[in-house]
């Protein structure tokens, strides 16, 4: 499977004078990586549900602090692929990963058997299709990941919760009702709360699995705007059913079909000048 990522990468570095990202992890470790460097790279990745091979030999690079969209018809394996990045398949018995997803800068294989999935999920956050806040207060939802990591200092929690809610554009709406149940929020607000919850632990990659498919157009627009802003903080990988959404929010687009990666490249190129017939058929609405 050919990837066109190198050409895409060239066109995206033209800005050239971005401030380096300084990520402060919970243990105080600092790292900087230039935007658009490889954050993760799938190499010969296959995935099996029992005897069924759902992903076939996928090669794809995910660039640092860019938005990469996965598109394709239902059942093409895009969500399955997304869920390999945080090892969600480990929760289902009888599943198997072959190949590798290299994670940088540490350079280890995310799907290796001896890598603890909890370790992976601590560094790669996820936002789901249906907003799934916990039946707790707004504050406790955002603080959840921090508490899991042993943070109990009230001042630190408050500071981090506020920062996460601000990053998720929910602070103004939520600041006066932090102790109210998260279930009193509207659907769009709940989804932004889930984004805040994921951001609070400063993940290096944030996975979105069709994050707006349960939302109305106004809430969808807010989430899309938010994702566009998030690319300054975090690497984003998003699965979407909605091709306009992929075109609006992503820098790179990968088209998948029947468990294979058909084509990947700069989003504008994929939508204006796809090199594969299958991609063209899909984006012009001939199937899917």
């Amino acid at each position, binding site marked *: 499977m050919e990837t066109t990522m190198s050409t895409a990468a060239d066109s995206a570095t033209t800005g050239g004078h971005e401030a380096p990202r300084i990520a402060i992890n919970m243990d105080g470790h600092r790292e900087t990586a230039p935007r658009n460097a490889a954050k993760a790279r799938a190499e010969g990745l296959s995935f099996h549900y029992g005897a069924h091979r759902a992903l076939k030999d996928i090669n794809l690079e995910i660039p640092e602090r860019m938005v990469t969209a996965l598109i394709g018809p239902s059942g093409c394996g895009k969500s399955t692929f997304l869920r390999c990045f*945080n090892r*969600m398949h480990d*929760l289902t*018995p009888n599943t198997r990963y072959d190949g590798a997803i290299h994670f940088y800068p540490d350079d280890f294989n995310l799907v290796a058997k001896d890598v603890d999935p*909890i*370790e992976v*999920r*601590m560094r790669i*956050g*996820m936002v*789901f299709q*249906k907003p*799934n*806040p*916990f*039946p*707790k207060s707004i504050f406790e939802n955002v603080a*959840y*990941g921090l*508490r*899991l*990591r042993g943070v109990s200092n009230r001042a630190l929690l408050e500071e981090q919760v506020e920062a996460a809610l601000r990053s998720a554009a929910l602070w103004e709406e939520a600041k006066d009702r932090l102790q109210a149940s998260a*279930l009193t929020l509207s659907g769009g607000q709940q989804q932004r709360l*889930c984004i805040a*919850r*994921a951001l609070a*632990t400063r993940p290096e990659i944030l996975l979105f699995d069709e994050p707006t498919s349960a939302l109305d157009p106004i809430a969808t627009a807010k989430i899309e705007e938010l994702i566009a802003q998030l690319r300054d903080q975090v690497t984003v990988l998003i699965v979407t059913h909605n091709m306009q959404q992929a075109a609006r929010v992503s820098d790179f687009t990968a088209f998948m079909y029947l468990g294979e990666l058909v084509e990947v490249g700069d989003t504008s190129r994929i939508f204006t000048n796809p090199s594969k017939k299958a991609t063209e058929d899909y984006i012009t609405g001939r199937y899917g």
Partner: protein
Amino acid sequence: MNEPKRPMPAGPATSVGMFASLRYRKARDRVVEALLLACGMVAVFITVAIVAILVSESAVFFEHVTLKEFLTDPLWTPLFADAHYGIMPLVAGTLTTTFVALAVAIPFGTTIAIYLSEFAPHKVRESLKPVLELLGAVPTVVYGYFALLVVTPVLQKLLPELPGFNMLGAGIVMGLMIVPFVASVSEDAMRSVPVYMREGSYAMGATRLQTALRVVVPGAFSGIAAAYILGISRAVGETMVVSIAAGMQPNLTFDPTQPAATITAYIVQVSLGDLPHGSIGYQTIFAAGLVLMIITLLFNVAGFFLTRKFREAY
């Protein structure tokens, strides 16, 4: 049934036959509805009848004994020459055995439920659940003898002062008896917490135990609380175990190492005797039964409000 009558549309579709069959169908519906209503009313009628009998027979009792004496007298000796009618010894026995039972059933039942719902592989769960439910099918008289002949002797090794009849052994066995019940209802509640809620927790890097304790249990709390309340009702109403193993002496104490009688045990004891119908001793059964019903009702009402307060809508 009170739909406004619409004029039948005129035309070839409106034949006399169709009109008749419509009328037939409506009549049949009314008959079925009446039958179903009658079946439903039987349950209501029985409940109302029981309450009415308890109240009216208790009224006779309270013509002889003042409510003040009933609630404050520390002795319950209605069958002795020197008769006292203080219900508190029986209430104390009931609450103490119930408390001991819950101290066993709630931790064990909840732990089993968490294991079955969150940890057990599919095969283990499918084979353990029927075993649990089988425990619920053991006759309570067997549990009673188990308490008297197995549990109490073991307890006496730890507590040499423990009398042969005591509330501790009876309460523990009663607790074991309701463990399967608490576990089963709690497990159903936990399993109804949606998968996407658990996934949200796992995706944050939570372990199974963290997910179970921080997301699933709080999410299922209304159902778990309902399991506890139903467990309490069972313990309060349980008769055989306490009659056999707790001793039948009304004893105003909350010390579980003492023998005592519960309300249910007293009712059994008196029902077995040959008390003349209409005597004051006979009437005590109804007063005791009324108190039992009120206690159970209070727990159920408390449970109702508790579960409503913590209900989560997904």
